[in-house]
């Protein structure tokens, strides 16, 4: 490999002598030199390029910038060919579109974001309608059921999620019991920890924690699976084979989640209560028998059904959002990532929103 020589520009009477390496590696220094010399060149000046050792496209572009109307002498034929090729390649105006970062830009982006949310909401409602219509159409026809796909997704979204759901709820149950015990003990009401645990896990925490976990675990998986199929035109292939992508891809996932989610929720409630009960038994002298008796007095069954009634709604929302975001994926790998993130965020947001509305509703009807 040749050793690099630093480029130079020198005035020699009428003409300008240039030499050295005019390459990309030297471009920063060269560009500064070129802009310094540019205006000062006499109209009829000649550029002597005999001393140029190496020339690449970047150097050629800079040499052309320097020369403007002036003549360039002394290049060997290969360098001349390069210069001609670069000269022929038309450059666009360098005034690239700059992003407006001012107040106007902020307003525009805010507007676009709001519009995006509105469009997403409409799309989600439309998609939910489409899914329901497809479901109603395909349910009466047993030939269109897909038991294999359903079983597969049941395992993936249900069975495989059991350990994490149980463990997480157990830990949160223990933490809530500790918190409750610490505060309630000051009032001499440590025994009410049982109510705290029972009430919160049966009505809210069991189902909400499960929904958040499933949104992160299965909702994202739905988006990524369908999204990469969309990116590789597999979804289009399904359509051209005379099949309905909603029926083939969405329904098995939706039905699997509708079955798995209530089961997981029940396990989650149980795990949370066991976690709380264990803390009660070990550190607060609330024996398991007492714990269970008090739970019965609380009317646990009623609270259990309040919590359970939300599970299918969350399941439906998570599956619908996950699948819809998957269908929104376009072409690139980055798009799969963006929509997966969006799917998880939307699903968790919707779960908490619906949970809040449900809490108000159940309070109003006094359940």
């Amino acid at each position, binding site marked *: *490999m040749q050793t690099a020589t630093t480029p130079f520009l020198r005035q020699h009477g009428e003409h300008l002598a240039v030499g050295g390496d005019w*390459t*990309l*590696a030297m*471009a*920063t220094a060269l*560009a500064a030199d070129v802009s310094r010399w540019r205006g000062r060149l006499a109209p009829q000046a000649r550029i002597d390029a005999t001393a140029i050792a190496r020339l*690449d*496209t*970047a150097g050629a*572009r800079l040499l052309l910038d320097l020369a403007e109307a002036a003549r360039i002498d002394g290049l060997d034929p*290969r360098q001349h*060919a*390069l210069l*001609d*090729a*670069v000269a022929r*390649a*038309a*450059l*666009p105006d*360098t005034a*690239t*579109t700059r992003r407006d970062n001012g107040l106007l830009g902020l307003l525009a982006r805010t507007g676009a974001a709001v519009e995006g949310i509105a469009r997403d909401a409409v799309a989600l409602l439309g998609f939910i309608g489409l899914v329901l219509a497809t479901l109603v159409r395909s349910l009466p026809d047993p030939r269109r059921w897909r038991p294999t796909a359903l079983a597969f997704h049941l395992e993936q979204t249900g069975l495989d999620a059991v350990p994490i759901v149980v463990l997480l709820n157990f830990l949160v149950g223990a933490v809530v019991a500790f918190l409750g015990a610490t505060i309630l003990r000051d009032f001499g009401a440590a025994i009410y920890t049982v109510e705290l645990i029972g009430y919160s896990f049966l009505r809210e925490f069991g189902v909400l924690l499960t929904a958040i976990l499933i949104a992160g675990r299965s909702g994202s998986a739905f988006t990524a699976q369908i999204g990469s199929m969309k990116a590789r035109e597999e979804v289009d292939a399904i359509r051209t084979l005379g099949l309905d992508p909603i029926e083939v891809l969405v329904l098995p996932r939706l039905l699997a989640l509708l079955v798995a989610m209530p089961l997981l929720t029940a396990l989650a409630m149980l795990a949370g209560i066991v976690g709380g009960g264990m803390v009660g038994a070990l550190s607060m002298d609330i024996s398991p028998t007492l714990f269970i008796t008090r739970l019965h007095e609380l009317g646990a069954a009623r609270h259990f059904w309040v919590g359970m009634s939300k599970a299918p709604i969350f399941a439906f929302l998570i599956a619908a959002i996950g699948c819809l975001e998957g269908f929104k994926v*376009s*072409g*690139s*790998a*980055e*798009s799969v990532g963006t929509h997966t993130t969006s799917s998880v965020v939307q699903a968790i947001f919707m779960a908490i929103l619906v949970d809040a509305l449900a809490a108000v509703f159940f309070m109003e009807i006094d359940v």
Partner: protein
Amino acid sequence: MTATEAIIEVRGLRNQFGSQVVHEQLDLDVRRGEIIGVVGGSGSGKSVLMRSIIGLNRPAAGSVRLLATEMMRASETERMQVERRCGVLFQNGALFSSLSVADNVMAPMREHFRLPLPLMQRFAALKIALAGLPPNAGAKFPSQLSGGMVKRAALARAIALDPDLLFLDEPTAGLDPIGAAAFDELILTLRDSLGLTVFLITHDLDTLYTICDRVAVLAHRRVLACGPLAEVERCDDPWVRDYFQGPRGRSALLAAQHARARHAHPAGGT
């Protein structure tokens, strides 16, 4: 520096995946400034050969000498230096989908040189223009480009650092005949003006006949024949004969002869 200096020298290459041997005792020389076409049936290991040469695939045995550097024994820095002088156009473009075309072209410049952004944008625009794309293509993202434009954008990125050596993996596959012919012309122009050496994998017989100086035929795990087309055509291996003497080969030859005749007598020319 002589005209016949070998810029790539492959000796005794052996590639193996599990029990499947792809290359065995494969030798190949590529000379500076030539366009060498590599042909072979599907699965004959053309892409594997390219990956072995550029170091993406470590061969089981043999040596690869690239730009006077023994790639198997070179240190990390030496390899990097050689890799910087190679441009690669992958079969499907392999453009970074999260970057615009201009950013794709600027990516190698950004990594290897510290250049002011406006200067880099100018050079990127130059490369995009050299690759035959319209000026507004720079702001587009790969997913917004047609197949032919993706190839051109990938070519612009491959020549971003003014490589000495350009590897092209089926550059005209999937292009319409007019687009493919224009791409061939572009490669020829770039070779002549930028002084490139081009290693070209192709199935396109028209490309072989119009722009390749030499052709290497890959079959039976080695280079079966290597030389100018006229020489390779005369090879008496049945596969090579079928390849070049088949109906497609003959029509490509005719087309190339036509093209050459037009080239030699352009309107108002010599």
